[in-house]
């Protein structure tokens, strides 16, 4: 019921905001989005206090929290139902979504100055879809929400974006949709090779795990082919090298609040889906393919970081570094260890908060300077001290400063993958290589900060630079506090993540 309430309230709010006059749309949207935010925080609290030790939603359906199932559609012999519920993996992501949406909406007050009601309406519509993605436990329902995210995102980038917004929007849209279709094909090749009659995720997990006698195509087991197709589909969303090129374009052109959502939550859809589908349902295959997958992850880490080094646009820097950060997640997932997989999940949250924070910081700077180019400005610390202070803190968080969430996530991943059984002798080598990302990330962020924030004040554009408004800085502060809180006490979410990860580790060969 709770999930349905979240979805309905947000959906109603979406309609309301669409119909509201532009002038009030921002405030109204913030108020509307506060409802699911508070609701999900309450649910989180309930979960934390009452559901401790519950299992994985896919592997032990009896333990699902806030579950609800209503039959919906019958397609041939396939039963589709409205089936939602949460576990320790989706719960933190749900809160991340709702909280980040609210903050992103507040941070949009300043930069969004036209067609506000449509903008905020789309933001809320996206929130509905995102809530759905993280709570749906039926494949169809999930896919409806999964694709439902694309449309508002496409329009948000396309309408309110920068100069090359049309190219970026269509690229994002088509690229990710193609990926979804490929994933879809891979998944259903498998569904129809088993005797599935229900598309609920737990049923799928059960069926795939016990599937036997699958056909082989060109000597390769269908399970492997499906795994690769699905991995491809989700990897685009993550994104993973070499499927990442839509991301920098989308980030650069998107208005800042949208970038916040894109980096903060949308990328996590990819890793969340990887975790749920490839690494839970097809755990055996994932273990077999662990080494190549880990290599992909490590290459993403280094490649993304190196590219970030070559950028001048602050947003592009953060965009490429997101690729780098998500590479860690892949590495953690393939480790199949408590710290590896749990850390990967934790890193989703941590990176969601920190990258959101980084983009917001860049946005606040852009609002007043109207440029994001390193080299077009310097010495901003002189004019907007608090913003810059938070920017510095965020950047260090991004670099993995201890006692901030990013360090916890990355450390867990490294710890988990360093002696991962799935990777064998390659484990320490790959992990060490991936760790080099923390040096490069320090390189480009420190460089960018030195050039833009410090030194004598100078600005190439003709705008008056003044300290940011309270409602611009407040979301930054909130995010920073969350980042620090999770860094100091990772168990706030790591504990529930572990509860839901450990069943995953118990399945599959060699565990």
């Amino acid at each position: 019921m709770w999930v349905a309430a979240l979805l309905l309230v947000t959906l109603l709010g979406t309609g309301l905001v669409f119909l509201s006059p532009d002038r009030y749309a921002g405030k109204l949207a913030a108020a509307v989005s506060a409802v699911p935010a508070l609701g999900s925080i309450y649910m989180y609290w309930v979960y934390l206090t009452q559901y401790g030790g519950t299992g994985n939603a896919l592997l032990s359906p009896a333990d699902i929290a806030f579950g609800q199932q209503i039959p919906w559609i019958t397609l041939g012999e396939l039963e589709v139902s409205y089936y939602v519920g949460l576990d320790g993996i989706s719960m933190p992501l749900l809160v991340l979504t709702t909280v980040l949406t609210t903050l992103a909406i507040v941070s949009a007050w300043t930069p969004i100055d036209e067609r506000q009601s449509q903008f905020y309406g789309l933001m809320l519509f996206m929130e509905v879809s995102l809530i759905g993605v993280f709570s749906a436990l039926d494949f169809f329902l999930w896919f409806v929400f999964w694709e439902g995210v694309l449309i508002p995102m496409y329009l948000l980038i396309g309408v309110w974006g920068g100069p090359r917004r049309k190219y970026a929007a269509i690229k994002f849209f088509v690229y990710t949709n193609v990926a979804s279709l490929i994933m879809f094909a891979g998944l259903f090749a498998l569904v129809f090779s088993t005797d599935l009659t229900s598309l609920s995720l737990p049923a799928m997990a059960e069926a795939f795990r016990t599937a036997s006698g699958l056909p082989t195509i060109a000597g390769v087991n269908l399970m492997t082919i499906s795994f690769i197709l699905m991995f491809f589909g989700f990897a685009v969303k993550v994104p993973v090298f070499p499927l990442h090129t839509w991301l920098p374009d989308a980030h650069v052109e998107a208005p800042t609040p949208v970038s916040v959502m894109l980096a903060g939550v949308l990328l996590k859809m990819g890793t969340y889906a990887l975790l749920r589908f490839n690494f839970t349902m097809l755990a055996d295959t994932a273990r077999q393919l662990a080494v190549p997958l880990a290599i992909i992850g490590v290459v993403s880490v280094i490649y993304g970081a190196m590219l970030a080094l070559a950028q001048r646009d602050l947003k592009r820097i953060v965009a490429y570094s997101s690729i780098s950060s998500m590479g860690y997640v892949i590495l953690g997932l393939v480790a199949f260890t408590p710290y590896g997989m749990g850390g990967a999940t934790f890193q989703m949250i941590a990176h969601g908060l920190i990258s959101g924070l980084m983009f917001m910081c860049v946005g606040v700077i852009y609002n007043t300077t109207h440029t994001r180019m390193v080299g077009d400005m310097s010495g901003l610390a002189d004019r907007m001290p608090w913003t810059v202070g938070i920017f510095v803190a965020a950047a260090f968080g991004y670099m993995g400063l201890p006692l901030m969430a990013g360090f916890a996530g990355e450390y867990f991943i490294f710890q988990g993958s360093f002696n991962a059984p799935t990777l064998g002798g390659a484990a320490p080598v790959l992990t060490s290589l991936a760790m080099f990302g923390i040096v490069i990330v320090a390189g480009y962020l420190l460089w960018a900060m030195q050039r833009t924030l410090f030194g004598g004040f100078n600005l190439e554009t003709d705008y008056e630079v003044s300290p940011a408004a309270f409602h611009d800085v407040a979301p930054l502060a909130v995010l920073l506090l969350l980042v620090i809180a999770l860094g100091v006490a990772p168990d706030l979410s790591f504990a529930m993540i572990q509860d839901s990860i450990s069943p995953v580790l118990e399945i599959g060969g060699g565990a």
Partner: protein
Amino acid sequence: MAAFTYAPAIVLLPFVSFLVALFAGDRMPKGGALAGITATGGSLLLSIWVALTVAGGEVHNEILYTWTASVETLQLNFGLLLDPLSALMLLIVCLISFLVHIFSLGYMNDEGETGLPRYYGGLGLFTASMLGFVVANNLLMAFMFFELVGLCSYLLIGFWFRQDGPPSAAKKAFLVTRFGDYFFLIGVVGIFATFGTGLFAPLTQGGEVVAESFPMLAEHAIVDGEVEGIAMLETVGMGPQAWFTVLGLLVLGGVVGKSAQFPLHTWLPDAMEGPTPVSALIHAATMVAAGVYLVARMYGFYALSPTALAVIALIGGFTALFAATMGLVKQEIKQVLAYSTISQYGYMMLALGSGGYIAAVFHLTTHAVFKALLFLGAGSVIIAMHHNENMWDMGGLKDRMPVTYWTFLAGSLALAGIVPFAGFWSKDEVLYEALIHGFGTEGGLGTVYLAAYAMGLLAVFFTGFYTFRMVYLTFHGDARSDTARDPEPVRWNVKGPLTVLGILATTIGFINMKPVADLTGAHIDFLHVWLNGPEEGGWPATLNTGLHHYETLLEDVAHVAKGYPLGETTTLLASAGVSLGLALAGVLVARSLYAGADPVEHTDKLGGLKTLLMHNYYQDEYQVWLATGVTYPLARVMNKFDQGVVDGVVNGISSVSLFGGSRIRRIQSGVVSNYATLLTLGLVLLLAAFGIMGGWF
């Protein structure tokens, strides 16, 4: 036990002062300085209390806070380890920090600097982090605070962010140390993965060991062959000693970065862009000591690996000499001190590598005192000189600022290693340990020790020279500029800390007058006793961090032995004599060159060597080249690749599709006759195909 109950407050007090200074500093008198002074003063008192308790034979090792308890097989904790080593270090850090806070009143407040809340906040955060590092009872916690002090260093070096130099120096400092920390992090992860724990010392409960420490586990693995539980060895396919050596060397990466050892020393001279009290606190006395402290903290682990010891000794000896030579030609007072700092930490590394655990800690202690003194003295001079740091513009300050002069002189004598000042005792012990272990140890390790010893010995001469070159240029002769003729006076808040440190620099060497003790047989080597503990039972038995344990390991596992080529006493005296002689020689050479009323530069006589030294052996150049000449162009090429090839494929697929579409639509020619033709053709083709298949014809 009460002292240990309050011990967390040692760390927390400065942290509170950080918050207070940052958020309320601009509404407080002195911009938050008072909060910092109160907090560090409080910490100092508590540290003394802790030290006294430890002196009573009690130690403390306890988990305070579980960072993450979620994975039952490997929980990550924060805990306190209070043993003689950490208690000593607490004292040093609290004391210097307290004095630096007071000094800052003169250096920052009186000079009318803006941004004081930020400054004192940074100092508070630094002190808290440093203390957190010192009391850490496991490697992960140590690493975390190790990183945090790096952040504070960054923030404080870049304090004057409106200029171009400091932000750049701050970036460099963080980046270079981060490079070292990269290896450290691998080491931390590796140690946790290998041993399942990062504890420095075993946790006990009612006399029973409830959690073993990783140095002990490593010892069991190597000495007793208990390798069953260590899955990591199978993964990497190495023997225990080889793998532990790798881990030790990885951790050493962080040490080399933080303690500014070759080749990661380049950041420290640049870090002098920060305010001078910061240089005194962070870049001389405490943070840079973190690396050395870490090696000492996990000495039981390094003592198991002769290779690691050799590397440490060699890095130390080489750095000591290498940095000292660069200090010879510097013109700015803080630059000289910076290279001297690098060089002195080289000595400590040399001591640790060559089995001189006591010597290293001793030198760490004395160095903290006299180098802080020198930096603060330099700060005093800089105030007087209106922030002109060039020694060639100074001269003759002796008479105009006597307190500064005499305390600075005490510090210089200590640095140069002149008897009986603090530096003499500690440096002598470092060299002595290297020497006897060099002679006593068999094989390559002994040779390495002797080579490192030779370099360390040579550096003694240079140390004496550059130290007194600095003293003579700054304080003696005639004033060479107007500001030197009429320097700005300094107040009590500058003189006070200088005096305290001056007295300490003169006297602190007495805590471990090992030559005297050996000669007279009097038990006055207090530090030795302090770190050794009781021979039987007591805290060393509980924690396994006692000197005795380390010596056993060195002897049994690393096969480090003592040898006295000239007999025990003679060797001792000869060693002391040689190093004192060389130091004096250095002082005298400096005197002969620069003591005149109007000294001139002699560096030109060095010829090509001068250029080399002035450019610091082109260390900066090659490291900058690595960053901007190799990495950055590589990144640009990769960017081109990304835009051109990876993205090109994506756009290519779309172009090909669209091109295909534009071809396909051409079929639709608009002429209805053609449609009929194509339609017929299609039908005929189908007819033919199915006809053949069905055998209709």
